[in-house]
């Protein structure tokens, strides 16, 4: 037990704490020893400040819109009497973008709203200039709407809808009733959704990489500085630290906002009064949001099956076959599968083990894993990737799958860890004692009782790790080498050669793979629940 705990701690010391310390040191390192002069230099540079300001502007705008849209969707699902299957459909459809890398969003936007884009063609004119602010805004909204929706959706689950009726019985008008029974209980969640959407947008790399154009944001600047023509690692370290600051701040805010949420003692399942205008209004609004979202991705499923979109629209499997025949691209896909598989296997092991030691033992320093989870939650993928680059550049880990897998495990740790913790802490605290009295060792009880009772959670953790390592780009963009290239980073490369058909085919492959994994995991989970 103690040995397992020490191993977990060593892993995080080596691959979280140490790299971050190195990052901090490198940001302070100059020819004359440690000083703040690197920061001063960045501060004086107009480019950098401009990019940071751009990032804040576009991320904030995207976060506001994503929160509002997320709320409309969640409200439609929880507080209207829309036909149930439609609600189910909305809930599933909204999650679909999560199965794709963010860099793909950018290309989908280009192919939808660009000069020759699908939607441009359908509407007969250009709606707006997509490269720069508009494209980024749109990409960020698509990217952050699903998590913002999820957060609000979950919070809705804790709101007691009986109070809607009570409020009406007390004579409240529509507005007052809405404010008191919906908005007020959800203030924390709405604020949380905004902050979450902001941080995600602020630290994302895939979207600026595709539709950023010449509009500089902090993520694209960071990439330039580290992997551009004249790499400057010290300056990169400074920018990474600067990217970390809002993230730290945001996570702190998120914790605070969570406390504003109401927690009703008991949630009653209650039939809402019917209200035709409300239902029709929200039904239409929610459908428009989801259809709008999906329509942007539609091009992804169309373009690669045409000879030469948008000029020659005859059907062909040529592009798909080309990709499948290209050893280079299938190799990259195989790499991605490998990385996702290893990440989900070992990641689930690490996260489950950490949660197990934290919740179900009396080890003295067990709270350490909570601190780890707080930090991994805060550190953006790009920052972690750069830290690894700085620390392991000279080591034998450089350019290996091991470092990519480790980066993913650490980067994505928080959510699976919290899933495991949540489920383990709900289990009967006397199982281990009972097992011991019946002759089990601790590990034996875990194997015979605790693990079999958390199969469903383990599957959920596995699919989370798998899907996210398939789509993540910000974490690994600094760590891939020629032979460890994965699909998400390959797409970035293909962009240079304008090979958009390949990009879409690869994206489809990721999408389908993730869909299959998700469906299998959900199916297995449901089968266990039925028994």
């Amino acid at each position, binding site marked *: 037990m103690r040995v397992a705990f020490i191993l977990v701690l060593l892993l995080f010391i080596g691959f979280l704490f140490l790299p971050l310390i190195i990052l901090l040191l490198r940001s302070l390192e100059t020819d004359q020893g440690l000083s703040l002069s690197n920061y001063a230099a960045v501060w004086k540079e107009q480019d950098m400040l401009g990019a940071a300001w751009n990032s804040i502007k576009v991320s904030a705008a995207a976060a506001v819109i994503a929160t509002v849209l997320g709320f409309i969707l969640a409200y439609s699902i929880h507080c209207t009497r829309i036909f149930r299957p439609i609600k189910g459909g909305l809930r599933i459809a909204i999650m679909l973008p999560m199965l794709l890398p963010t860099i793909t969003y950018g290309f989908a936007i280009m192919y939808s709203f660009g000069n020759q884009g699908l939607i441009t063609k359908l509407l007969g004119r250009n709606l707006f200039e997509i490269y720069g602010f508009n494209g980024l805004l749109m990409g960020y909204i698509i990217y952050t709407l699903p998590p913002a929706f999820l957060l609000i959706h979950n919070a809705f689950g804790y709101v007691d809808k009986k109070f809607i009726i009570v409020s009406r019985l007390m004579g409240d008008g529509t507005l007052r009733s809405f404010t008191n029974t919906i908005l007020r209980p959800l203030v924390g969640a709405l604020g949380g959704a905004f902050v979450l959407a902001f941080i995600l947008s602020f630290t994302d790399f895939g979207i600026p990489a595709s539709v950023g154009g010449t509009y500089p944001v902090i993520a694209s600047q960071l990439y330039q500085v580290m992997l551009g023509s004249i790499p400057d690692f010290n300056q990169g370290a400074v920018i990474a630290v600067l990217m970390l600051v809002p993230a730290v701040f945001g996570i702190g805010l998120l914790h605070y906002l969570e406390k504003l949420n109401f927690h009703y003692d008991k949630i009653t399942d209650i039939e809402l009064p019917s209200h035709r205008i409300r239902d029709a209004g929200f039904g239409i609004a929610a459908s428009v949001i989801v259809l709008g979202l999906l329509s942007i991705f539609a091009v992804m499923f169309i373009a690669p099956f045409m000879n030469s979109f948008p000029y020659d629209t005859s059907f062909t499997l040529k592009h798909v076959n080309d990709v499948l025949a290209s050893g280079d691209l299938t190799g990259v896909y195989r790499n991605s599968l490998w990385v996702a598989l290893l990440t989900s296997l070992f990641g689930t092991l690490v996260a489950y083990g950490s949660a197990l030691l934290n919740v179900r033992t009396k080890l003295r320093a067990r709270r350490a894993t909570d601190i780890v989870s707080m930090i991994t939650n805060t550190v953006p993928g790009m920052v972690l990737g750069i830290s690894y680059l700085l620390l392991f550049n000279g080591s034998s880990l450089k350019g290996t799958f091991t470092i990519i897998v480790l980066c993913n495990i650490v980067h994505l740790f928080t959510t699976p860890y919290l899933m495991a913790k949540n489920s383990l802490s709900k289990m*009967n605290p006397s*199982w281990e004692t009972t097992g011991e*009295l019946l*002759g089990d060792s601790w590990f034996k009880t875990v194997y015979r009782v605790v693990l079999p*009772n958390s199969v469903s959670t383990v599957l959920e953790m596995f699919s989370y790790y798998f899907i996210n390592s398939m789509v993540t780009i910000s974490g690994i963009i600094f760590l891939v080498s020629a032979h460890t290239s994965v699909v998400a980073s390959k797409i970035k490369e293909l962009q240079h050669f304008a090979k958009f058909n390949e990009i879409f085919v690869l994206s489809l492959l990721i999408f389908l793979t993730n869909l299959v994994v998700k469906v299998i995991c959900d199916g297995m989970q449901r089968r266990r629940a039925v028994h």
Partner: protein
Amino acid sequence: MTYGFYTESVSKEVGGLLKLHNISKQFDGKTVLNDISFEIGTGEIMSLLGPSGSGKTTLLHLILGLTGVDSGSIIFGNEDLTRVPMRKRGFNIVFQDYALFPNLNAYDNIIYGLRNKKGVASKQEVQEYIDFLELTPHLNKRIGELSGGQKQRVALARTLVTKPKILLLDEPLSALDGVIKESIKQRIQSIAREFKLTTIIVTHDPEEALTLSDKILIIDQGKIARFGTPQEIISQPDNDFVERFIIKQLQIKRQNIYNLFGEMYAHA
């Protein structure tokens, strides 16, 4: 009441007296148990009775070995168990919430310990426990499909199969309703008689303690308020707390029943 009878007849077979000497326990500087001493003989049923927070569950855990004592000693037969770890003491417990394993059905819960202690109970013996607790129709059920009383019996069977030297029960009746409660009560008594098994029960209900056990240890704020047989406690409460906490409650109950049924039933 026939307590004491078993002490003489079987003490040689199963290990004899359980003696606690001057047991004290603190949690975070707060004294939870203070100078507890008592002894009980083989096959006796003893209740630890007291209001919530009195320290009775802590005492049960100390006997089990789940928690260590700060001072004092625990002797079983000729052996000093004070520093012996839980799994080597050979005692077993049924927790208040039963702690049944939901991934296994009733039968697999019952035989859970047999994989670790091979030969501790033969197949036939297991069947005897199952018959005794009338569990045969429920063996293939999942834990979620069992009623409270059935769960209690499965948990008892799982514990008995490992042949503990002392059986500990934490609030065994509190989660059960009226009729089931009486039937489990009889079951516990017959287990103690049948298997000559020393049984220690934690309860906060005076009626339960007085009708179920041979001896009762009344605890108030970590100290022994009274230790004796049910008759002794009723006839000589000897103590203001016992008077208030035990006797008063029973008198109110008697009055209620008297009011409902008339004097004849109250004394029946």
